């Protein structure tokens, strides 16, 4: 049923640390690797070795440059992984005409039942985050499942029972847990670091949170050696001084 549950028992989701992400794209690759071999249709590529290649990915890493307003502040480069945010008010679910898209009551994961999907693409139109991609080979909508086939999978060692992207991240920039439980590690992290929503004005109430980059350190002035170092002359002297004055006069 494509009406949204009024309340979910858990709010499983990701917390992504924009301060820590190094932009290595390991999460992209491990996501594609796991999800092409497991739950649902494989994630196809088109013309993978040609000039005009494309393919289906459930997780993509953008990079943004942010230029602070202060004149002397250096620009910052921020790597920005983006996948389904498993919104509480998921617009992709309610638009679905077939009931293929649904939000689970038990954990809040948004999933697609691929055998019901007609590939109309309307859910991808309704998603502001670009989290859904229509697989060009299979003709059905693909999206992040929060590795639903890993997190409850008792055949896997316990440390592997988390989404592939979280398990693989070498920087520890991705965290998985219940954001509905205020005592969970992820909820504490969000509270501590001021976790934020993407496009809050769209009213989707995303479960996934992003931790903003920490303010840049400021290098303190070292003055231990300062008495031994004469400041560099501001005004040129000698030949350069003469040249400067002469050129000024011209």
């Amino acid at each position, binding site marked *: *049923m*494509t*009406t949204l549950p009024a309340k979910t028992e858990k709010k499983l989701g990701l917390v992504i640390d924009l301060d820590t992400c190094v932009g290595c794209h390991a999460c*992209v690759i491990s996501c594609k690797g796991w999800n092409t071999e497991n739950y649902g249709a494989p994630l196809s590529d088109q013309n993978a070795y040609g000039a*005009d*290649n*494309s*393919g*289906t*990915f459930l997780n*993509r*890493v*953008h*990079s*943004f*440059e*942010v*230029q602070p*307003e202060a004149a002397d*502040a250096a*620009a*910052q*480069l921020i790597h*920005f992984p*983006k996948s389904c945010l498993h919104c509480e008010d998921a*617009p992709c679910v*309610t*638009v*679905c*005409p*077939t009931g*293929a898209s649904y939000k689970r009551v038990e954990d809040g994961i948004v999933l697609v039942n691929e055998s*019901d*999907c*007609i*590939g*109309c*693409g*309307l859910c*991808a*139109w*309704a998603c*502001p*985050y*670009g989290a859904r*991609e*229509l697989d*060009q080979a*299979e003709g*059905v909508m693909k999206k992040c499942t929060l590795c639903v086939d890993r997190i409850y999978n008792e055949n896997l060692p316990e440390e592997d029972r988390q989404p592939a992207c979280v398990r693989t991240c070498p920087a520890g920039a991705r965290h998985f847990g219940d954001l509905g439980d205020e005592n969970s590690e992820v909820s504490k992290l969000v509270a501590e670091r001021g976790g*934020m*929503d*993407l*496009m*809050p*004005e*769209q009213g989707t109430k995303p479960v996934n949170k*992003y931790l*903003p*980059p920490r303010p840049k350190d400021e290098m303190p002035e070292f003055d231990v050696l300062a008495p031994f170092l004469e400041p560099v002359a501001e005004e040129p002297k000698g030949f350069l001084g003469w040249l400067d004055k002469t050129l000024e006069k011209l």
Partner: protein
Amino acid sequence: MHPAPSVIFFTTFSGLGFGLLFFLGLGFPAVTGWTAFAFFAIAYVMAVGGLMASTFHLGRPERAIKAFTQWRSSWLSREAWCAVGALMLMGLYGLGLVFFDSRWTAFGILGAGLSMATVFTTSMIYTQLKTIPRWNMKLTPLKFMSLSLAGGALLAGQVDAALVLLVIAGLVQLYAWVEGDKAFAGSGTDMASATGLGGIGKVRAFEPPHTGTNYLLCEFVHVIGRKHSQKLRVIALGLMTIVPIILLALPFSHIVGVLAIASHIAGVLTARWLFFAEAEHVVGLYYGKR
């Protein structure tokens, strides 16, 4: 948005077909026998043809029947119900007119209502999307319905009604363009809110996630042809409303009527192409594009 031919043909011709069915259902013109058959055939070819075209953009058209299940929440599902309901009731109504020379008024009125409801539900599929600010306004259903009624009146040969409705549809379209041009800026969604990084400074897309293209860019970030949008707007409005109005003002003949209809259809197709090509999805912001 990518202006897919299947969706442009679907919205244009189903709008015209259901517009004609609306007038036929209310008994304008009050035709029976083979004349009625001809009118109904035109309406059904357009409405059903449009609906068939819409299935071409599906990834899995063989499962299209499942789209009837979610009428509680989904406008696309409601559209499917309204369309089938309208076509069935108008089919019964047409059966009476063509073969029994009798007017089953109740079927006609209900069918006319469902025909307009179909156009309304179609427009709501687009209107509901907050992600596409240009469509997310009350003018969108107004535009679809006024155009459908104007085209329907034109096809039904209701010259007086068509003249008034064409003027209304043209004005609504103009107003929709004026308001639509301001919609994205007015939505409050920009790169700062998309990334949450606006508090640090000005955000610029530095590097996309992939070297090639992807489904999102093909579907949502269509920029080809936008530079001609002003010219195309003039062409669309001219063909859609002004030329038919001038032709209808001339002494009526079938040739003039056919020309007015042809011009109107060409204009609506152009306007509908613009409706998609000019629409900007907020996901483009993540790519630094609109």
